[in-house]
């Protein structure tokens, strides 16, 4: 299975998926930590993947999503954005709505 298929499989396995540096308990980057805080504040149940321990997925994601940095948040397999966009959406109450809708 090539990397793009693996990514598709990971994205279809859960409604809310976060690719980050490190793990929610041990984030390895301030932006990834912020993303997990925001998801926590939204009460989101999500699957997270540590791209530091999977360089293939890390490289594959850059092509898959045309987004070069991490974290990357996906709702129902669609890229929402990185930390910047999550903060912006959270500020105007959009992130909470999007996540509630995605979790169904």
């Amino acid at each position, binding site marked *: 299975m090539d990397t793009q298929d693996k990514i598709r499989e990971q994205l279809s396995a859960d409604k809310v998926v976060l690719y980050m540096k490190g793990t929610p308990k041990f984030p390895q980057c301030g*932006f990834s930590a912020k993303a997990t805080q925001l998801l926590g504040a939204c009460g989101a149940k999500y699957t997270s993947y540590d791209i530091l321990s999977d360089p293939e997925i890390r490289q594959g994601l*850059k092509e898959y999503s*045309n*987004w*070069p*940095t*991490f974290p990357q948040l996906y709702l129902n397999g669609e*890229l*929402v*954005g*990185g930390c*910047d*966009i999550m903060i*912006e959406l959270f500020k105007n109450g959009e992130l909470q709505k999007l996540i509630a809708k995605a979790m169904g």
Partner: protein
Amino acid sequence: MIQPDDIKQMIERGLPGAHVSVTGDGHHFEAEVTADEFTGKSMLQRHQIVYQALGDKMGNEIHALSLRTQAPGE
């Protein structure tokens, strides 16, 4: 180490006519970009357009770039 001016020029080359201002400390940067190309685009698409202009610098020399993107008149 990459400088704010380098980033500014790359964005301006990628988005001719855009108004660009960049600050930063060599790792983390902030950029404000106003460009016609952003009209009618979502925040995600706007950021992707800027990342395109920065090519492989994004995620490598540029560890973090926080963006404020506007279309003219916003």
